[in-house]
């Protein structure tokens, strides 16, 4: 089947575009902030889904790429005075490079050992940056307000950041779909199902895993630049917060790992739930516990996630649910 004729892809893209254009049409900054959070989660969860959902390697410390990208980006913009565009590229490249090196080192580990190693990497990176003077050590980097001038002031810069995020998110959904319907993706899914059998059938597993890891790291690196540019400052504690990684995991599991649509639905659903919990007096302080319990319930009862469940239950929906 021709993957471009997959109606589910176009529906997903159209819905995401519609969601993204909503605040633009209404010109509402508050709404834009809400959608920003959702789109960011959609893009990050879709990225993580490549290594987690397609190749079956659970990266618990994926936020390390987001944080590293943010640091590299802010450093280049603040200290070297480079443009946001260069910073975005550099953030993506830095994350890709880290993933490539890590891939060679820790992707040999299987299952829980890999997951644990990714946590170790995240903690090591936090400790390193905490003591790395060019990146401001424990205090981090605060963006000089003048940097925003080049983008028509802070208010305009926020719209620019939002537009870039929307384009990136759409691109990521497309990439996720292309990978899933490619020979490369077939190799990854073979690895997920049985790595030894995949190797015997000729999948060059070390390479496939490394490139999947790199691919799932590039966008988080770029989005880190974007997010911390918008945020104005970055600190080690925030940049490498393990709970952010776990939230991404919850989103993917909620929507359905290994599907194109799953991380999109899961991220949107999770952020909607989180918004509700944060504004609710009872749950405000325990929203992370709720996320943890949610993850547990999904793994116990619907390990394939919402999209996976629907696909199994109603095979006729397969074309609509990529």
């Amino acid at each position, binding site marked *: 089947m021709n993957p471009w004729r997959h109606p589910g892809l176009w529906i997903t893209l159209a819905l995401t575009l519609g969601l993204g254009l909503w605040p633009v049409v209404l010109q509402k900054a508050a709404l834009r902030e809400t959608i920003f959070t959702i789109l960011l989660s959609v893009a990050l969860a879709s990225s993580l889904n490549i290594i987690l959902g397609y190749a079956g390697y659970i990266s618990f410390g994926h936020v390390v790429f987001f944080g590293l990208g943010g640091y590299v980006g802010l450093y280049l913009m603040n200290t070297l005075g480079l443009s946001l565009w260069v910073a975005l590229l550099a953030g993506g490249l830095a994350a890709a490079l880290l993933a490539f090196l890590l891939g060679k080192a820790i992707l040999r580990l299987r299952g829980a050992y890999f997951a644990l190693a990714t946590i170790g990497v995240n903690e090591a990176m936090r400790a390193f940056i905490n003591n790395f003077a060019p990146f401001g050590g424990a205090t981090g980097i605060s963006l000089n307000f003048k940097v925003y001038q080049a983008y028509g002031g802070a208010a305009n810069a926020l719209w620019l950041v939002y537009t870039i995020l929307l384009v990136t998110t759409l691109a990521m959904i497309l990439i996720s779909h292309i990978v899933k319907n490619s*020979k490369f993706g*077939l190799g990854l899914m*073979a690895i997920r*199902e049985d790595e030894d059998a*995949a190797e*015997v*059938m000729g*999948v060059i597993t070390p390479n496939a895993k490394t490139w999947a890891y790199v691919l799932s790291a590039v966008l988080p690196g770029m989005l880190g630049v974007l997010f911390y540019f918008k945020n104005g400052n970055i600190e080690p504690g925030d940049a490498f917060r393990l709970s952010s990684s776990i939230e991404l995991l919850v989103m993917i599991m909620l929507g359905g790992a*290994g599907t194109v649509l799953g991380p999109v639905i899961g991220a949107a659903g999770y952020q909607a739930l989180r918004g509700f919990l944060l504004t609710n007096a009872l749950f405000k302080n325990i929203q992370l516990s709720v996320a943890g319990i949610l993850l547990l319930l999904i793994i116990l009862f619907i390990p394939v996630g919402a999209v996976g469940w629907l696909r199994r239950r109603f095979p006729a929906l397969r074309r609509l649910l990529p």
Partner: protein
Amino acid sequence: MNVLQVSGVCKRFGGLHALSNVTFDMPEGQILGLIGPNGAGKTTLFNVIDGVYPPEQGQVFFRGQDVTGAKPYRLARLGLARTHQIVRPLNDLSVRENVMVGACFGRQGLGLHEAAKTADEVLAFVRLEARAAQLAGSLNVAQKKRLEMARALAARPYLLLLDEVLAGLNPSEITAMVEIIRAIRAQGVSVIIIEHVMHAVMNVSDRLIVLDYGQQIAEGTPQEVSANPRVIEAYLGDPKLAERLLAST
């Protein structure tokens, strides 16, 4: 030309000598039967040939090339394919996708489109075409054995290693599978077959190698091997072995 040469291969697991000094040449286009009691080292020999375990000593040549210690994916791309004694379906992928993996990453390294065509051909050949769209995990054992076979064949290998593809099948399934194996050889593919279903392996093999406790205790045509006293001893000293085996061919 020899499609495979195994020379002086030794493989130990801790103190256990799973393979001791195994040596044989395999000319192209033959079916070589590999027999021996459980635990004799037959599967281990497959694992050494296809690179799952590097041997401690000895060498393996595939189509004249030294592949000792090469990774399984390298051998797959050179034209070696195998089935697993304990089936290893990619459960969450469809039967067709399973076979496409073989076609995409095997000797020919086909693109997805071509691989899908090859997969459908091969599935028809092993009579599994009706299951193509089903998830591999939902097949029964006999069907999973055919899937193993289809995946290996889709790679269009020069040499095919079959590890007990008849075990657990009923007599009519065995007959069907034996026909498939003959048809594979007719296509010019060399085959090594590990089998406990004696009448089948005697029937289908050009030559046999007998392993016992990792040692190569006999080698020759089915007639020669089944009359060999060491073979009879290895098989629980059944003096009527030769008679029984040849009777059923």
